[in-house]
Structure formats: structure tokens, C-alpha cells
């Protein structure tokens, strides 16, 4: 059985750390990779928005944003009550599950196309829309019991580097003329390569902070496999009952709701919640949820979408 190349880069990073190889990921490169990834996701969504902008899409976008808000609010109490995980880490993990995985989305697209199942072409826009609310909700959950002033909280929610870079990319992608094609090779063609290097660093980080995962190992594994099923059920229900999407569209929305971010949210959380244990969230989203969705989840979500749309 072969694995996705970007996932292998993550595993490679873990092996480098476990083998105690004398290697440190350059800090400047790490920040550059985050910058490119966040802008790339925003730009893709902006371009998709330009060619499909209408009122129905706005309403669908609002429903998708609500999914991004609801999922962290489901995940957070589970992590706090059953997992007994501290507030900052629970908020960080919850934000990861409210957001989406571009890798899982790409696999789902490939599955739908291989089975000739039609889907709405503007779905990249929903990928961007689902990235943002979860970050804001995660920061709010981490700080709602603190002493911070509302203005400071709002600043961190809407003006943290992750959200600003993605929104900036979205606005540029929407507003720019054809000249955007000249810069897209950097953000589109190199996306997978940049993602692979980013995941290499994520693997190094996850392995270096594996002790915390050992403490909550079995719980985190169970949580990381339950959340995709809860998210997919919510996504498929909204896609069928509220948005009236096609079978492929319902399956894609289920996949988006089921997946957990390992690109935008880790980048944003490292800025917004630097005290959180990022290896815990990365290990659960990338080490458990991503393979679970790819190997087990996507066929089940497609079955769910087919069942719901034929009702």
C-alpha cells in the first residue's frame, strides 16, 4: 500500500527526530512556508469566488461558516470533560477539527472523479471559508475565561497573522485581473512541495513533543476518530437539508467537516496560542484523523451522501 507523498514527509520528520539526527529546521524557512501556504489557500478561494459569485453562494457560504463554528464547540467540551485536557490545548485541538484538511479534500476530489460523481466546482471557496471561523472560535475558547479586554480578544480573533494572511489572499484573488496568473505558479504549482516541507517540520515538532501524547494517547486516538464521524454527519445533513447540494457536493462537504487542519490552523495557533502543545493537535489531526479519513472515512461519507440524496 502506498501513502501520500506529503504524509511520508511528516513520517520522515518523525523518524529524523526519533533517530536523534543533528538537524534543525531553519526558523526563517519555517515562517516563509507558513506565509506561502496561508496566502495560497486564500488566493485559490478568491479566484473561485470571482467566477461563482451570486446570492445563493453567499447563503451557502454562511451555512458552511456555521459548520466551522459548531464543530469546535462540539469538540471543546469533549476534550475538556472526557479528555481532561487543559483549556488552551483543548481550544487548540478543537480549532483544528473545526477547520479543514486540503490533503483530505484533494483525496476526496480524486475519489469522486474516479467514480464519475459530479460536484459543485466552487468548493475550494468553502475550504477557505472553513479555515477562518475555527481559528477565531479556538482563540475565543482559549481566552473566554481570562481577564483580557474585549478589544484585545477581537484583535486576536480577527487580526491574528493566520486569519489576516488568508483573508488578504482571498481579497487579492477576488480583486486581481489576469495578471494574477503570473504569480500563481508560486502559490499553486509549488503548493504541494511547500506543504511537504511544512509537514517535515511538523513531523519534527510532533516527535520532539511526543511525551504529552503518550499521557493522553488512547483518548486522543479515539477522539481523533470520533470527531470525523460527527463532523461528516453534520456536514452531510447541512449539505442535503439546507444547501440542496448534489451527491458529490454533499460528500465533499461531509469530508470538509470531517477533516482536521494541519496547515492553516497549526500556523495560526502557533502565533495565537504559543503556549499550546502543538504536537498534540498535529499528532491527532495528521497522525490519526488524516489516515482515518483517507482509508475509512471517505468511502463511508460517500455512502452517507448517496443515502441522504436519494431519500
Amino acid at each position, binding site marked *: 500500500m502506498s501513502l501520500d507523498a506529503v504524509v511520508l514527509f511528516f513520517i520522515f520528520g518523525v523518524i529524523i527526530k526519533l533517530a536523534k539526527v543533528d538537524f534543525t529546521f531553519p526558523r526563517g524557512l519555517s515562517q516563509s512556508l507558513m506565509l506561502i501556504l496561508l496566502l495560497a489557500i486564500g488566493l485559490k478561494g478568491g479566484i473561485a469566488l470571482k467566477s461563482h459569485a451570486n446570492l445563493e453562494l453567499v447563503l451557502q457560504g454562511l451555512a458552511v461558516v456555521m459548520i466551522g463554528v459548531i464543530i469546535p464547540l462540539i469538540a471543546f467540551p*469533549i476534550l475538556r*470533560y*472526557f*479528555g*481532561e485536557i487543559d483549556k488552551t490545548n483543548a481550544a487548540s485541538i478543537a480549532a483544528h477539527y473545526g477547520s479543514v484538511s486540503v490533503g483530505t479534500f484533494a483525496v476526496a476530489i480524486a475519489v469522486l472523479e474516479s467514480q464519475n460523481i459530479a460536484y459543485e466546482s466552487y468548493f475550494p471557496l468553502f475550504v477557505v471559508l472553513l479555515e477562518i471561523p475555527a481559528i477565531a472560535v479556538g482563540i475565543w475558547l482559549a481566552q473566554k475565561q481570562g481577564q483580557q479586554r474585549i478589544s484585545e480578544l477581537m484583535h486576536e480573533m480577527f487580526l491574528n497573522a493566520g486569519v489576516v494572511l488568508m483573508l488578504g489572499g482571498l481579497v487579492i484573488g477576488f480583486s486581481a485581473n489576469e495578471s494574477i496568473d503570473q504569480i500563481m505558479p508560486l502559490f499553486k504549482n509549488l503548493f504541494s512541495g511547500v506543504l511537504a516541507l511544512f509537514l517535515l517540520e511538523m513531523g519534527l515538532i510532533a516527535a520532539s513533543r511526543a511525551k504529552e501524547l503518550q499521557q*493522553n494517547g*488512547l*483518548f486522543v*486516538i*479515539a*477522539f481523533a*476518530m*470520533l470527531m470525523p*464521524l460527527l463532523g461528516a454527519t453534520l456536514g452531510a445533513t447541512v449539505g442535503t437539508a439546507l444547501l440542496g447540494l448534489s451527491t458529490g457536493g454533499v460528500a465533499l462537504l461531509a469530508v470538509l467537516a470531517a477533516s482536521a487542519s494541519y496547515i492553516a490552523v497549526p500556523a495560526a495557533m502557533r502565533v495565537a496560542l504559543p503556549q499550546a502543545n502543538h504536537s498534540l493537535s498535529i499528532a491527532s489531526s495528521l497522525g490519526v484523523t488524516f489516515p*482515518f479519513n483517507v*482509508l*475509512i*472515512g471517505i*468511502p*463511508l461519507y460517500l*455512502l452517507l451522501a448517496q443515502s441522504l440524496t436519494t431519500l
Partner: protein
Amino acid sequence: MSVRQFIFVYFVGCLFAALGGLLAFQQMASWTLCAVGIVLISANILSQLSNRKASMPDVAVAQNSAWR
């Protein structure tokens, strides 16, 4: 592992095993889901047993002290 974590993992394991078993006639992935559920339940119980075993000597020492 705390009691709440044990209950949660046990619940997820049972849910996966039941859901995977129910859907198994429709999707091969469901068999995997069922297997994952069974593995979770087994690992959860084994983890709990090993924790109990590890804490046994302390109990024995405490009981001996009480006898003396």
C-alpha cells in the same frame, strides 16, 4: 488513564464496532471501522488492566504495613 477517558474510549470502540458491523455488507471500509472499534476496546481494557497491575504492589505494601 482516568475513568472518564476509559468510558469515552470504550464508547467510541463500541460505536465503531457496531456501526462498522451494521454497514459491513455495503462497504469494505466498514469492516476496517469495525476492526478499529474492536482494537480500541481491547487496547482500552488492556491499558486499564496494566495500570491496575502496576499499582498493585503499592496496595500490597500498604496492607502489610497495616497488619504490622
